[in-house]
């Protein structure tokens, strides 16, 4: 008799069996069937896991359903007694099976698939089964609804089905921990298979390495490879041995960049015989670390601490006590140092100090401190004061009295009158080799004139972020200037900023065409670094005149023409031709530049091209060929 008929009879013995079954009846039958299947499966499972304890009758599929029920009930009882032990055994066996499966690999999997297929072929979920097949049917279970119990496919544990239960490889459900493991494995596989289409990430790494000075063409240097490896395993390094100071500094730079300069790794860089301590990221270092620093390296001459947010008075006090040889101090963001301590620093250590660099001081450090500094540090040659919020014009007046000053960098937020600047330049100009005045927005032509009149030893000049100095002023600066040619010229962001007048005033403000031409005419022969970013009023004709291929700038290595939007490809070609030693050309925001063929060993940064990397570097074309190709394309 048909199984369904039999079932129906079982359920409703009095009912007359008709050939048209309603849906509810069929569903009812199906759920019953699935329950039976469930129980049969339970039984089979337990038998498979532990053949010794279950009833030792013939294999499950051949048994009658009723017998299966009884047997299952019996098995369940047995199970309860030795549940824990069994479960442990089951787990162990499963693990071995898994390991075997992994070992067996493809062959074993194929075998299993074949067996599964045979089984599937045998089953016939259609309603018209032949009688013989009754005992052999592998019932396809309906997926249990959430809330019901189910056995995990991989570990055989019983768990409650939830809407989030994952499906196992054979179609059944797996419990939560196995599900998590499965997704983890899947993810690993996907990652392994994923082609290196993480192009964006790699490009970023390439760009970052380029900015670190690591060449991107060809193989990296062995020193670089080793440094990277050490930085990668910073946790395991116990001692750096006898590394020469230069390598030690490079390593500390890399550690700082990766933000692993911590109390644990700091001692690697402290040796009694060193005479400099350079930590570019001291954010994680605390008071004890500073004390350690000063006690291990008492003879330090050079101290560079950036991001020293935790440097406090106590540490400074100890430093003044221990370190009597300080010549070079650079403290960036040392905001917990009090005003009195600054005074003490200059008073006690000032006599020997030659270099002072202070940035990002917001809370303390007033004009009086600068005054003290000038009084106490007669040997000061290099001074850098940037972004110290509390100093203003009085500091400028004090600095003007420093007798030995050769290198001066200033970036002062408060208002400074032009007269003060002119006074400073007049007094110190003749000795100055470096002058950097950033963001003095109101500095005017008179200041530039003062530079022209008083400075004749300058090699590095920076006048950036200013919108008052006119082009005529710049031209006057570079015309008939007794100063020898500059090596470093930075005039970025000197331009008129007025939204109502985008093309700029009639008389050009900031470095424009004639100023630029005069600059290159004056300093061309020895200029190494040129930065004219955002000087957007320099005309294309001026660029073409300066970089015309015929004129050669033998020392120029770095050019920044970002946001000079009049630049186009011919200018870039001219630059390649005119600058034989060029290493890096930065051209962000120059939208007329495209189809650039970059010669060997030059890095072009910032030229827009949707498909290409932000940075293009030469693949082995030399300059003439590159320029030739560009001219072809342009023409």
């Amino acid at each position: 008799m048909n199984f369904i008929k039999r079932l129906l009879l079982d359920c409703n013995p009095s009912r007359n069996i008709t050939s048209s079954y309603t849906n509810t009846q069929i569903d009812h039958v199906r759920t019953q069937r699935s329950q039976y299947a469930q129980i049969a499966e339970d039984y089979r499972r337990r038998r498979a896991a532990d053949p010794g304890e279950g009833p030792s009758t013939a294999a499950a599929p051949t048994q009658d359903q009723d017998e299966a029920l009884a047997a299952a009930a019996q098995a369940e009882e047995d199970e309860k007694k030795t549940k824990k032990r069994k479960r442990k055994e089951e787990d162990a066996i499963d693990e071995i099976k898994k390991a075997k499966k992994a070992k067996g690999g493809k062959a074993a999997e194929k075998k299993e698939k074949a067996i599964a297929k045979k089984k599937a072929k045998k089953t016939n979920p259609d309603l018209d089964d032949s009688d013989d097949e009754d005992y052999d049917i592998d019932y396809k279970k309906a997926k249990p609804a959430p809330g019901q119990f189910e056995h995990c496919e991989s570990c055989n544990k019983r768990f409650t089905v939830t809407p989030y239960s994952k499906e196992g490889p054979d179609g059944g459900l797996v419990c939560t921990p196995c599900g998590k493991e499965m997704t983890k494995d899947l993810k690993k596989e996907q990652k392994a298979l994923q082609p290196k289409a993480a192009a964006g990430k790699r490009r970023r790494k390439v760009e970052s390495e380029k900015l670190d000075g690591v060449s991107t063409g060809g193989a990296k240097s062995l020193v670089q490879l080793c440094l990277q490896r050490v930085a990668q395993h910073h946790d395991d390094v116990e001692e750096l041995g006898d590394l020469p100071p230069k390598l030690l500094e490079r390593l500390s730079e890399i550690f700082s960049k990766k933000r692993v300069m911590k109390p644990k790794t700091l001692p690697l860089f402290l040796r009694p015989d060193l005479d400099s301590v350079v930590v570019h990221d001291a954010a994680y270092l605390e008071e004890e670390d500073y004390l350690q620093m000063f006690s291990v390296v008492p003879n330090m001459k050079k101290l560079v601490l950036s991001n020293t947010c935790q440097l406090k008075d106590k540490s400074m006090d100890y430093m003044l006590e221990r370190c009597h040889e300080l010549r070079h101090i650079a403290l960036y963001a040392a905001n917990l140092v009090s005003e009195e301590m600054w005074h003490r620093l200059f008073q006690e250590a000032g006599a020997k100090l030659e270099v002072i660099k202070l940035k990002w001081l917001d809370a303390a450090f007033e004009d009086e401190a600068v005054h003290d500094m000038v009084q106490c540090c007669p040997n000061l040659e290099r001074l850098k004061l940037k972004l110290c919020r509390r100093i203003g014009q009085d500091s400028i007046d004090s600095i003007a009295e420093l007798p030995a000053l050769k290198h001066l960098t200033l970036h002062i937020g408060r208002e400074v009158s032009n007269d003060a600047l002119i006074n400073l330049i007049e007094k110190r100009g003749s000795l100055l080799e470096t002058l950097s005045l950033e963001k003095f927005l109101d500095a005017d032509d008179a200041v530039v004139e003062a530079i022209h009149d008083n400075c004749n030893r300058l090699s590095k000049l920076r006048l950036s972020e200013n919108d008052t100095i006119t082009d005529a002023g710049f031209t006057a600066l570079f015309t008939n200037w007794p100063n020898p040619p500059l090596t470093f010229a930075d005039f970025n962001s000197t331009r008129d900023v007025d939204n109502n007048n985008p093309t700029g005033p009639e008389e050009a403000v900031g470095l424009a065409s004639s100023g630029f031409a005069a600059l290159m005419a004056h300093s061309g022969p020895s200029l190494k670094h040129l930065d004219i970013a955002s000087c957007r009023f320099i005309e294309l004709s001026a660029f073409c005149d300066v970089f015309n291929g015929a004129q050669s700038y033998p020392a120029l290595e770095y050019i920044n023409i970002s946001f000079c939007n009049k630049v186009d490809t011919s200018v870039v070609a001219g630059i390649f031709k005119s600058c034989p030693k060029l290493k890096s050309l930065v051209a962000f925001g120059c939208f007329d530049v495209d189809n650039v063929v970059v010669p060997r060993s030059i890095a072009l940064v910032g030229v827009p091209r949707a498909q290409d990397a932000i940075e293009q570097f030469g693949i082995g074309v030399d300059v003439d060929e590159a320029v030739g190709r560009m001219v072809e394309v342009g023409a």
Partner: protein
Amino acid sequence: MAATSDYVTLVSSDDYHFVVQRSSACISPAVKRMLDPMNGFLEAKTNTVRFDTINAMVLEKVCEYFYYSEKNESARDVADLDFPTELCLELLMAADYLDI
């Protein structure tokens, strides 16, 4: 020797001899200068350079680096040379000495 041979020998501190191509070894400016016949060093005459501070394991990696570097001179996006991390610091010192 009048003619410069194609191969040179690098000897480690523990007396291991590594025979490498001259062109590869001269990737290191230090070695190049040592082997330059113009400078008249003993190394140039015998085509052998002895390194008393570099042991065999490190020197082997260095030689491997010579070839790796020469092979990938004009290539782009080259894979990094692999080496055991334990060797790292000694290799760093050797690399710094040889300026490679």
